[in-house]
């Protein structure tokens, strides 16, 4: 070992530890923000809803907001339908509930599509962020909008990540013709403007969240694929890959155990940026009015 390379190694190590030190504070902060957003998204009806969390209705206790929260969660929801004390709220608490009976309301006791008496109110104690032009509570819409945004961001990037990692890994590992074909394919997909593609798809299959998620997922994987490909190409020639070959590891084993772990870091970073991009894209779409359905509320609509 030459002195220079030792020193170089040392600097790299020390730098990476100091970055790690700084990063840990930043990462913690980022985690807290991300968890808050997910928390708000998952628990939206407990924070803002037109039904109470707990109330006494016709002699029995009901949990309308809780039921509406859990209903959204795939497995738990169907489980809930069969369980006794929770039943789907069949009443509108605002109209039919006796005002004097026991009820705990969410902190913002309005639903995202519930119409108030007054439109365009400025913020007050009742409506913290006021009401919009149709008289809906802005904060309630913001909270429920998070839900859609998180869903779009997460699902579309899971899809994009899956495609990007597979295409990138295959292109990088097998090289040659395979790499050429995959790389050209990536470049072609990169040319699609997702925004207009979504408009086209909407016109074709109709409006819906699934369409948006699919289009974003199927177009935004290219940067992930390129990063994974670069990492795999770099790793493919590494000594430890040859060492793994020398003890009889198969191609799949080498790709999955040795090359992908190194490539996953950059891929995950690209995916997190992708989540933000997807949310912005979706917000933009709702702002230009691709979303006509009043049933859904979006951050984009209110941010505008």
């Amino acid at each position, binding site marked *: 070992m030459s002195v220079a390379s030792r020193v170089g190694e040392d600097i790299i*190590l020390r730098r990476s530890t100091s970055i790690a030190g700084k990063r840990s504070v930043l990462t913690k902060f980022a985690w807290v923000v991300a968890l808050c957003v997910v928390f708000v998204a998952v628990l939206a009806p407990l924070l803002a809803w037109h039904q109470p969390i707990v109330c006494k209705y016709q002699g029995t206790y009901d949990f309308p907001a809780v039921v509406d929260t859990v209903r959204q969660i795939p497995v738990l929801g169907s489980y809930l339908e069969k369980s006794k004390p929770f039943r789907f709220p069949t009443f509108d608490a605002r109209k039919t509930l006796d005002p004097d009976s026991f009820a705990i309301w969410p902190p913002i006791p309005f639903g995202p599509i519930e119409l108030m008496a007054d439109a365009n109110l400025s913020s007050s104690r009742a409506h913290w962020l006021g009401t919009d032009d149709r008289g809906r509570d802005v904060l309630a819409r913001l909270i429920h909008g998070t839900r859609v945004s998180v869903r779009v961001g997460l699902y579309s990037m899971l899809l994009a990540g899956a495609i990007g990692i597979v295409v990138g890994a295959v292109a990088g590992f097998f090289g040659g013709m395979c790499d050429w074909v995959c790389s050209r394919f990536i470049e072609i997909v990169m040319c699609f403007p997702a925004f207009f593609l979504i408009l086209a798809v909407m016109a074709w299959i109709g409006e819906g969240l699934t369409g948006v998620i699919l289009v974003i997922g199927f177009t935004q994987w290219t940067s992930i694929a390129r990063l994974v490909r670069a990492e795999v190409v770099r790793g493919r020639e590494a*000594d430890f890959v040859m*060492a793994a*070959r*020398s003890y*009889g590891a198969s191609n799949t*084993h080498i790709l999955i*155990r040795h090359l992908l*772990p190194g490539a996953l870091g950059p891929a995950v970073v690209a995916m997190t940026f992708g989540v933000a991009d997807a949310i912005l894209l979706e917000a933009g779409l709702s702002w230009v009015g691709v979303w006509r359905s009043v049933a859904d509320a979006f951050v984009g609509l209110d941010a505008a």
Partner: protein
Amino acid sequence: MTNTRDRDTLLQIRDLRVRYDQAAADTLDRVSLSIKRQEAVALLGDSGCGKTTLALAMMRLLPNGAMVSGSIELRDGDYATPIELTRLAEDRLREVRGKRMAMLFQSPQRSLNPVLRIGSQIEEVIRVHTNVRRADARLKAIQSLTRVGITDPERIIRAWPHELSGGMAQRIGLAITLAGQPDLLIADEPTSSLDANAKAQVVELLRKPRRTMGMAILLITHDWTIARALADRVCVMDGNRIVEDRQPEEFEAHNIHPAARRLIDASNRRLRIAVTNGDDVR
């Protein structure tokens, strides 16, 4: 030839030629070499003469563009007829690599994956070779580390490759190559980055599995003293060919190839420099 029919022969290389993609000349030119069961053969040669290339050719790890001709036959009790390695299909090769022949690479640090802990890398090799459960693999990994003389295997198993010293990485490389209990171990310059003390330990570590597992060794080195200490036979390469193939004692004679003489003298000189504390490096 009666020699090639010898029941004790483990590996027989005949007229091996290797030329790298776009290289002007052959890197190996008609190299022939045979290794007997449990024999330790040292391959001595200057830097760049093609020692690693020979080892990689034996493991079929040369880059795709390299042209190879000649034959490399591996004999084994399980196989009635010798296996011709130069033409073996990739999936059959995987049964040979690690289990019949294993290779310890020239740069131990770099042959470990930097993003995986030592423990998981050793377990992985064990799981490639034997069908054991994860928990058993961990136990076996600890045992294999103890066997190569690591005193605190529990700590090392959780370490990252960059936290190891060169000698430690070398031992872990050895543990990995021994995991498949190969018939032949190719050790590519296992001592070149180590100090005298660590060198002696590695030599001892290589001797042990020979005794216990009946393993043959091809030791690649440019250090005569190591070759002398370990080998039953010493081959010397010069340029792209093997020019000497004898017992180590026979190298005392004066009619040996000049390349062999040069290597031996170089080793002795290094020894002298070490003794005079590096005052006259020339």
